[in-house]
């Protein structure tokens, strides 16, 4: 198969406290509040002192409920910063990481496309795999990078998609670029124009 069995696809795992860290930065999107609230609860049990050295960045979305944000507010962390759009959150997070010290751990929870954007910032600060943990929840919709015209589309839910810029039909591969924070879309009917697989909603 063209789109599976590719090792660059990120692997996620349920968030757990990394008690080796000295400062903790948590970043969540929408229903990602659930895993973060659970993580904060685990900290309270295992290392309550760490909560004062914990800061949370959270962006609401349509799927998130009032309870999600409230559960974070009740967590007792050092600081909670909430946003209603992703871009301002990312700008604010970047500015904060620029002042952060070694010993910081990053925890991310939310839809994969959001986590990719956070990870891209983390890599810019040279955070390595042993400093970042991520738990996927919410939509599996993908950011897709057209390898032909280099445009990137948000919220792609189908195995095959028409590039919004160059109008080629792309198959969405599992080949993931951490630098672009996106999956690669490759022209699907280059050999026989018009011969395309059936379009299915697969990333929901």
């Amino acid at each position, binding site marked *: 198969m063209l789109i599976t069995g590719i090792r660059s696809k990120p692997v996620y795992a349920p968030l757990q406290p990394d008690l*080796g*860290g*000295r*400062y903790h930065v948590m970043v969540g999107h929408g229903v990602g509040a659930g895993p973060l609230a659970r993580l904060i609860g685990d900290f309270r049990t295992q290392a309550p002192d760490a909560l004062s050295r914990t800061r949370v960045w959270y962006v609401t979305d349509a799927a998130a409920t009032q309870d999600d944000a409230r559960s974070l507010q009740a967590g007792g962390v050092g600081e909670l910063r909430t946003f209603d759009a992703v871009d301002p959150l990312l700008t604010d997070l970047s500015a904060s*990481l*620029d*002042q*952060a*010290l*070694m*010993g*910081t*751990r990053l925890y991310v929870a939310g839809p994969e496309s959001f986590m990719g954007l956070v990870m891209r910032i983390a890599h810019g*600060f*040279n*955070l*390595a*795999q*042993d*400093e970042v943990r991520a738990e996927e929840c919410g939509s599996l919709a993908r950011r897709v990078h057209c390898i032909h015209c280099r445009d990137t589309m948000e919220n792609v839910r189908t195995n095959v998609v028409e590039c919004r810029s160059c109008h080629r039909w792309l198959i969405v591969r599992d080949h993931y670029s951490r630098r672009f924070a996106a999956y690669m879309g490759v022209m699907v009917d280059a050999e026989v124009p018009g011969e395309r697989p059936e379009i299915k909603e697969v990333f929901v």
Partner: protein
Amino acid sequence: MSSSHSDTIPVRVAAIESVTSQIKRFTLEPLRGELPAFSGGSHIIVVMRGQDRVYRNPYSLMSSPQELENYQISVLRCDPSRGGSAFMHEQVRVGTELEIAHPVNLFALAKLARKQLLLAGGIGITPFMAQLHDLRLTRVPYELHYATRSPQHGAYCESLARAEPERVHLYHDCDRHFIDIEGLLSRQPLGTHVYVCGPAGMISRVLDTARALGWPESHVHYEKFAAPPTGEAFDVYLQKSGISVHVPADRSLLEAIEEAGVDAPYLCRGGVCGFCRTDVVGLDGEILHNDHFLSAEEKASGKVIMPCVSRARCRKLALNL
């Protein structure tokens, strides 16, 4: 695999300078052509053919990676010496021909670091000398903190401080002026990598402090070449070769194997790289592990040994060589 070290490079000693009373700098030039390219932090093995034995010691390259007309190494005369450093200090003259193995880097700079923090103790300055040449070509901020017993014992202190006074910080034990490891490591920006090379005590202090302050392992780098300890003599049976070899008290297991004509793998000869890892197929005593590579579980298993630095206290050790 073993061919990686059998093709040595013949070199001639072009210059010898006394840097301190205990440290000499040797400039090695190739007998023909140019020397292989290397990156800062690399070491070479120098092969010294003494009267009745061969010494193979690792030394960090300290010259600029941008200049391949010659290599420079600094040799601290160890006291007591197992023979290698004394050979370099007493037997080697300008014009002496030696063989060296190709450079290997087990202490490379992380290319994506946002800041580089270099901590040197004593002769541990040498890999950093080459790395500084590399760092000057980047825009990445860096600091060198270099501790020596006294200004007289400190190799290259003056030239380093003169070249980059804002980046080089010197410390001398005689002034009771020590590197504030905890203070330094607790205020580094995210994305910093720390590198330490020096005495064993300094390295373990840095590793312990970094861990306590939450530094992840991926950002902590160290280089510690253990000279092979001497010990009791013992015998080893090399199963694949079908021969028994006596390991005298003053030879390492690897040296004894090599003297018996068996080509065993190695890279660092200092117990750090893991290249010489060898399976133990028989043992009636205990292995004295001296390396920094095997895990505690592997060491306890008695199934594997690093012949470059480790020995055995037994009547019979059998290896898969």
